[in-house]
C-alpha cells in the first residue's frame, strides 16, 4: 500500500473542495476562480498519473481501501475506493481531458457574467466524475453518479435565461432519473441478496466468486436493472432523447460531460460490474449481455442515421456520441471489455477534441450553430480546421494513425467472433460507413466550399482555446501507439496480462475491411456533398442534397424518427392523464371529506369559545389584575438608583456577617 493508494480519495476531494471555494468567491473574482479551478484540475491530474504509475508495477494490480461508513444495529455499511487498471486509465483520461476543457472554457466563457459559477460547477462535476471512477462500493458509486447527474443538470441549464436550456436540463434530469430508478432497484436487490455492496473485499465483494455465488440466478435481473442506469446515463436507445437536447449547455460542458466523461459513465459502470453480467456465462453469452448487445446495436445504428440529417453542428456530434456509446456497449456485450474501454478512452479524447473544435467554430462565428450557414472556414481558422480534421478522422476510424481506427477495428474483431449471431457485426459495419459519411458531410459543410452566410469576419480563436485543441489532437494521434494489435499494450494492461510486440499482427483482414468501409463512407460523403450549399441545378442552396433526393426519409431522420413525439403521445400523455385524474380526485373527493371534517372542527370551536369567554377568562383576568398590582409594587422598588442597590447589598453582607458571628 503506497501513499497514493491510501489517499486515493484526494483525487475527487480536491476538485470538489475547490469548487466550494470558488462558490464562496465574489462574482467579480473571475481570474482567481478560473485559476483555482485549473489548479485543482492539475492537482487531480498529477495524482491520477501517480495512481496510474502505481498500477503499472504488476499486471492485474488492484489495491482496495475499505472502511466502515456507519453502523446501524449490528449491520455495518462499508464503502471504499479501489485502484485497478480500469480506474487508473479512466482517471488519467478524465483528468487530462478535463484539464484541456477547463483551459478551453477560460477562453470560451470569457464574456459570460456567471463565469465563477460556471467554473465552480465544472470542477464540482469533475470531482464527482473522478469519484465515480474510484468508488469501490455500488452505493458510493451511486452517490457520485447522482452528483454527476446533478452537475450535468446545473450545467445544461447554465444559461437559465433561455427557456430551451431550462427545458433541456429538466428533460435530461428526468430521463436519466428513469434509468437511475432501475439502477437503484438493482442496488437494493443486490444488497438484499448478497449482503454487501463492495465490489472487491478480499473475496467477499459482490463481484468476487463468493459474493456472486450468493446471487445465483438473480444475477441476471440485477445486472439488467443496473444496466437501466447505464442506459439512462449514456443515452442508449429508449432513453437517448435527452442527450441531443443537452447540447443547449455551453459547448465545453457538452465536450466534458456529454461526450468525454459522464455519458461514458454508463459504459464504465457495465465494465465495472462486468462479473455480474458475465456470471454463469456459457462461452461468453448470458441473457443480460445479449440484451446489452442488441440495445447497443440499435442505438449505434439509429443514432448514426439520425446524425446524417441534422443541421446543428453540436447535435450531429451528440448523435455520433450516442452511436459511439452504442458501439462500446456492443463491444462489452460481446465480451470485448478491453476493446470497449479502449474505445471509450480514445473516444474521450477525440470527441472532446471535436466538441471543442465545434466550440471554437461557434465562438468564431458568434454563436451560430447551423452548419448550413457556415462554410469556407478552412482559411479563416486553420488551427481549428486541422485539429478538427484529426478528430474527424479518428472518429470515422481511419486506420493506422488515429486511435479511433484501432479501437473500432478491435471492436469489430470481437463482434465478429460472437457465437450467438453475426447480425450485430454487419450492422456495426454499416454503422462505420454512416459515421464516416456524416462526419464528411459536416466537415465539408463547415470548412470547405465558400462561406454562405456573412462569416468573413469569423476569426480564429485565441490561443487559450486553440492550445487545448492541439493537445487533444496530439493525444488522439499518439494514443494509438498503445492500441495497435502489433503491440496491444493497453489491451494487456486492462486485461491484466503483459503485452508482447509482434509486427505481423499489425495487418489483418479486419484492417482492410474497415479501411474500405471508411473509404466508402468518405467517398459517398464527398460525392454527395462536394457541391452542397452551392446553387445546383433546380436545387436551392439551403436544401440538403439528401433531402433533395429522399425528402421523406430525410424528414424522418431530421425529426429524430419522431421518437420525441412518440414519447409525447405515449408516456407523457399517460402521465398527463393520470395527473388530471388524480387532480379531479383531489378536488372533489378528498377535498369534500376534508371540508366536512373542517366544519366539524368549527362547531367544536364555537362551543369551546363560549366556554372560554364565560368560564375561564374571568378567572384568568382576576389573577392578572392581582399580578399586575403586585408587579407595580415590586417595580417601584427598582428605582434604578445604583447606590440604593449597593446599599442593600452592603446590608445583606452585614446580615450574613452577623449570622456568621452568631453561629461561630
Amino acid at each position, binding site marked *: 500500500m503506497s501513499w497514493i493508494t491510501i489517499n486515493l480519495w484526494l483525487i475527487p476531494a480536491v476538485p470538489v473542495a475547490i469548487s466550494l471555494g470558488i462558490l464562496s468567491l465574489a462574482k467579480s473574482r473571475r481570474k482567481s476562480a478560473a485559476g483555482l479551478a485549473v489548479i485543482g484540475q492539475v492537482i487531480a491530474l498529477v495524482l491520477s498519473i501517480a495512481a496510474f504509475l502505481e498500477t503499472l508495477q504488476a499486471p492485474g494490480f488492484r489495491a482496495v481501501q475499505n472502511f466502515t461508513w456507519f453502523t446501524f444495529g449490528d449491520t455495518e455499511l462499508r464503502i471504499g475506493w479501489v485502484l485497478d487498471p480500469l480506474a487508473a486509465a479512466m482517471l488519467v483520461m478524465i483528468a487530462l481531458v478535463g484539464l484541456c476543457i477547463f483551459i478551453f472554457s477560460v477562453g470560451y466563457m470569457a464574456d459570460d457574467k456567471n463565469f465563477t459559477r460556471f467554473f465552480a460547477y465544472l470542477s464540482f462535476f469533475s470531482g464527482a466524475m473522478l469519484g465515480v471512477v474510484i468508488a469501490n462500493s455500488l452505493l458510493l458509486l451511486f452517490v457520485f453518479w447522482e452528483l454527476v447527474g446533478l452537475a450535468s443538470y446545473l450545467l445544461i441549464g447554465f444559461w437559465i435565461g433561455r427557456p430551451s436550456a431550462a427545458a433541456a436540463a429538466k428533460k435530461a434530469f428526468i430521463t436519466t432519473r428513469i434509468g437511475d430508478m432501475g439502477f437503484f432497484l438493482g442496488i437494493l436487490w443486490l444488497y438484499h441478496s448478497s449482503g454487501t455492496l463492495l465490489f472487491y473485499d478480499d473475496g467477499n465483494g459482490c463481484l468476487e466468486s463468493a459474493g456472486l455465488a450468493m446471487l445465483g440466478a438473480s444475477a441476471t435481473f440485477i445486472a439488467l436493472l443496473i444496466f437501466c442506469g447505464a442506459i439512462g446515463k449514456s443515452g442508449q436507445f429508449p432513453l437517448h432523447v435527452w442527450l441531443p437536447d443537452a447540447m443547449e449547455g455551453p459547448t465545453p460542458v457538452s465536450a466534458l460531460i456529454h461526450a468525454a466523461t459522464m455519458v461514458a459513465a454508463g459504459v464504465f459502470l457495465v465494465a465495472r460490474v462486468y462479473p455480474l453480467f458475465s456470471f454463469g456465462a456459457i462461452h461468453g453469452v448470458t441473457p443480460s449481455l445479449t440484451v446489452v448487445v442488441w440495445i447497443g446495436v440499435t442505438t449505434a445504428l439509429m443514432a448514426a442515421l439520425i446524425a446524417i440529417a441534422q443541421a446543428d453542428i453540436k447535435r450531429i456530434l451528440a448523435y455520433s456520441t450516442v452511436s459511439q456509446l452504442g458501439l462500446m456497449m456492443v463491444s462489452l456485450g460481446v465480451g470485448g471489455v478491453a476493446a470497449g474501454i479502449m474505445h471509450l478512452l480514445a473516444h474521450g479524447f477525440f470527441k472532446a477534441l471535436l466538441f471543442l473544435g465545434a466550440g471554437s467554430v461557434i465562438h468564431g462565428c458568434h454563436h451560430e450553430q447551423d452548419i448550413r450557414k457556415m462554410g469556407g472556414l478552412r482559411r479563416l481558422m486553420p488551427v481549428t480546421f486541422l485539429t478538427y480534421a484529426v478528430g474527424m478522422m479518428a472518429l470515422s476510424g481511419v486506420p493506422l494513425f488515429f486511435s479511433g481506427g484501432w479501437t473500432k477495428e478491435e471492436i469489430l474483431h470481437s463482434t465478429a467472433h460472437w457465437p450467438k449471431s453475426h447480425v450485430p457485426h454487419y450492422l456495426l459495419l454499416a454503422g462505420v460507413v454512416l459515421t464516416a459519411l456524416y462526419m464528411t458531410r459536416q466537415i465539408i459543410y463547415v470548412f470547405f466550399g465558400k462561406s454562405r452566410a456573412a462569416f468573413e469576419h469569423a476569426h480564429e480563436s485565441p490561443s487559450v482555446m486553440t492550445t487545448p485543441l492541439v493537445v487533444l489532437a496530439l493525444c488522439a494521434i499518439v494514443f494509438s501507439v498503445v492500441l495497435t494489435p502489433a503491440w496491444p499494450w493497453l489491451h494487456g494492461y486492462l486485461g491484466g496480462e503483459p503485452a508482447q510486440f509482434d509486427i505481423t499482427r499489425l495487418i489483418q483482414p479486419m484492417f482492410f475491411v474497415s479501411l474500405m468501409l471508411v473509404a466508402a463512407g468518405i467517398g459517398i460523403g464527398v460525392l454527395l456533398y462536394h457541391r452542397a450549399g452551392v446553387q445546383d441545378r433546380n436545387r436551392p442552396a439551403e436544401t440538403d442534397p439528401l433531402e433533395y433526393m429522399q425528402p421523406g426519409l430525410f424528414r424522418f431522420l431530421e425529426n429524430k424518427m419522431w421518437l420525441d413525439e412518440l414519447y409525447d403521445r405515449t408516456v407523457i400523455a399517460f402521465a398527463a392523464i393520470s395527473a388530471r385524474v388524480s387532480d379531479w380526485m383531489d378536488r372533489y373527493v378528498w377535498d369534500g371529506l376534508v371540508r366536512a371534517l373542517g366544519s366539524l372542527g368549527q362547531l367544536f370551536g364555537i362551543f369551546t369559545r363560549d366556554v372560554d369567554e364565560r368560564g375561564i377568562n374571568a378567572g384568568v383576568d382576576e389573577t392578572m389584575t392581582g399580578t399586575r398590582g403586585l408587579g407595580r409594587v415590586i417595580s417601584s422598588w427598582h*428605582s*434604578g*438608583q*445604583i*447606590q440604593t442597590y*449597593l*446599599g442593600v447589598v*452592603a446590608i445583606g453582607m452585614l446580615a450574613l456577617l452577623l449570622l456568621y458571628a452568631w453561629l461561630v
Partner: protein
Amino acid sequence: MTPTLQIFLIVSAALFCVGLLAALSRRHAIFILIGIEMMLAAANLNFIAFWRFSPEPHQPTGVMVAIFSIAIAAAEAAVGLALVISVYRHYRTTNVDQFDQLKG
C-alpha cells in the same frame, strides 16, 4: 510588637469600608468606580495577608489570586469608565441619581 494577621485584616476592613463609603455616598459615577476599586484592593490585601500568615507560604496561592484579581479589576475599571463616558455623552451628566431609566 510585630503586626499580626488581625491588624492587617483590620486595616483592610477599614479600606474596604472607605471604599464602600465612596461607593454609597458620592453622587458622581467616577466616585463609585473608585470605591469599587478600593474594595477590590482591600480584598487583595486580605489575600496577600492570609497567604503570608498561612502555615505554608511557599506555595503562592494568595499571590496568584491577587494577581488575577488585579487584572480583572483593571478590566472592570476600563469598561466601567467607558460606560461612564458613554452615559455622560447620553445624559450630559455623571450624577448617578439621574441614570434611573433604561430607555435611552
